[in-house]
């Protein structure tokens, strides 16, 4: 790479993805400038998770292209993976390992030098308040504890791009605030970029520099929270924007809701 203008942290161009007959993502374009907190919002089934998973290199994106800091995701998978930290939507920590081992594993996988590893892992656990339970296997953790453990894993080597899929779901209000404080703290220290999905409009309003609203696999509105609100009504809330963009379909179909419930239960079962 030559020294040109700094590439955006993420550039998504014409991206589509279908699962069988379901078109999950139907032609999405957006840029995330380096250093910002970018929120991907939208009702259940809008295609947010699928979009994130394509950026993580897990799902193919043709005919669209995705670049992470100027690197084509399809061609430089390994290089892109070095730059990202990812917290998936469903709770996931290895229940057979202790909290400490879970984080240490990711420290190794992101090449934290051996000399610093112990300290880095300790710091990561401390910053999410899990030091006291670090020696217990993750199968004994509560949902909120697993979420914080996952954040420690994703942040262990200060990624360039942190991708969080509904990071605060199931967290109590205090934990929610502390998770965001931790994210913003790392961003202040390292200049990392954050790409986040959430269903909490207050969170999006408070923490996101820019928001894209997805619906049925497409982006329906994009801008700063203030711009989006102003486009609907002078004293609109982000809730109103959401409602205006997605019509009255605030709730997904019952079938989809069941799928989510089942998936969550299954995860809880596996971890237990």
């Amino acid at each position, binding site marked *: *790479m030559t020294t040109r203008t700094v590439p955006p942290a993420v550039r998504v161009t014409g991206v589509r993805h279908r699962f069988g007959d379901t078109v999950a993502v139907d032609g999405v374009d957006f840029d995330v400038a380096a250093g910002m907190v970018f929120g991907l919002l939208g009702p259940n089934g809008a295609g947010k998770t699928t979009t994130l*998973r394509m950026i*993580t*290199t*897990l*799902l193919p994106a043709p005919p669209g292209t995705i670049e992470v*800091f*100027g*690197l084509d995701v399809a061609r*430089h998978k*390994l*290089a892109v*993976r*070095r*730059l*990202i930290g*990812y917290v*998936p939507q*469903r*709770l*996931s*920590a*290895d*229940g*057979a*390992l*202790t909290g400490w*081992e879970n984080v240490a*594993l*990711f420290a*190794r*996988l*992101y*090449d934290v030098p051996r000399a*610093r590893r112990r*300290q*880095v892992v300790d*710091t990561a656990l401390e910053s999410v308040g899990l030091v006291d339970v670090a020696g217990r*296997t993750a199968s004994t953790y509560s949902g909120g504890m697993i979420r914080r453990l*996952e954040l420690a*894993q994703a942040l262990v*080597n*200060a*990624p*360039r791009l942190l991708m969080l899929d509904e990071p605060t779901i199931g967290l109590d209000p205090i934990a929610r605030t502390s998770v965001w404080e931790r994210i913003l*703290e*790392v961003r202040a*220290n*390292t*200049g*990392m970029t954050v790409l986040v999905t959430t269903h909490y409009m207050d969170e999006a309003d408070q923490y996101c520099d820019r928001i894209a609203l997805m619906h049925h696999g497409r982006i329906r509105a994009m801008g700063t929270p203030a711009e989006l609100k102003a486009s609907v009504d002078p004293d609109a809330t982000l809730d109103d924007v959401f409602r205006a963009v997605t019509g009255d379909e605030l709730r997904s179909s019952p079938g989809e809701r069941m799928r989510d419930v089942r998936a969550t239960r*299954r*995860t809880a079962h*596996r*971890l237990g």
Partner: protein
Amino acid sequence: MSEQLAVPLTGWGKPTPLSLFRLAISRIATMSLVEVQKLRHDRTELFTRAIQPALWLIIFGETFTRLRAIPTGHIPYIDYLAPGIIAQSALFIAIFYGIQVIWERDAGVLAKLMVTPTPRIALVTGKAFAASIRALIQALVVLILAALLGVALTDNPLKLLGMVALVSLGSCFFCCLSITIAGLALTHDRLMGIGQAITMPLFFGSSALYPINLMPDWLRFFNLINPLGYEVDGLRGLLIGTPAQLGLDFGVLALASIFMISIASALLVRLAR
């Protein structure tokens, strides 16, 4: 806060073969270490799993030695059986790893690992390593038991080392076979069905329990393409000194393992989608 700067953006162009090789080795070590940590948290299971091969050896072995129902020449049947039981228990352990990979997929752990800069081959090889360690612990239990039952085992350290290598290769092959099937079956239930449908034929279609010359022709042919047959042949040669084609046994198992590692690694991505 001791937060270091994030990784530099430049210098991550197309990796060279050498850097990829180094990365793979380092990640294989990491994933193997993790598996050892998991085993450490679950020590009782290591030994409860040794009960089954012990029963085979004691009940099946002792009974058939007395009955003299299976002609094994001048070698007592229990001596003949002991290496077969080692291979069998290694097979049963390794075949379980496909299910474990599916569990890890369902728990979301697999996808998270696949998003880290880790070659798939390291994820697969870590599992193969774990299968080998478990199989070797069981082999140790079987060996001690066999010695107590008066089986005339070798005490040549080189041959014992050969046994370690052979059991590891066999475990690696069957573990990767199991992950391959997991990558094709994708769900836990289907994998259980297929796993059971192939484990028993692999076991009975090998010389683990009876000599090849007792087999009908078609079974003899199956034994010829069954890696378990080569594992048993080699183990018997090393442990109780029956005539064996050691070079062939090691060669077949090594090639089969490399082949299976590649296929399992290639199919792993199907599980994470």
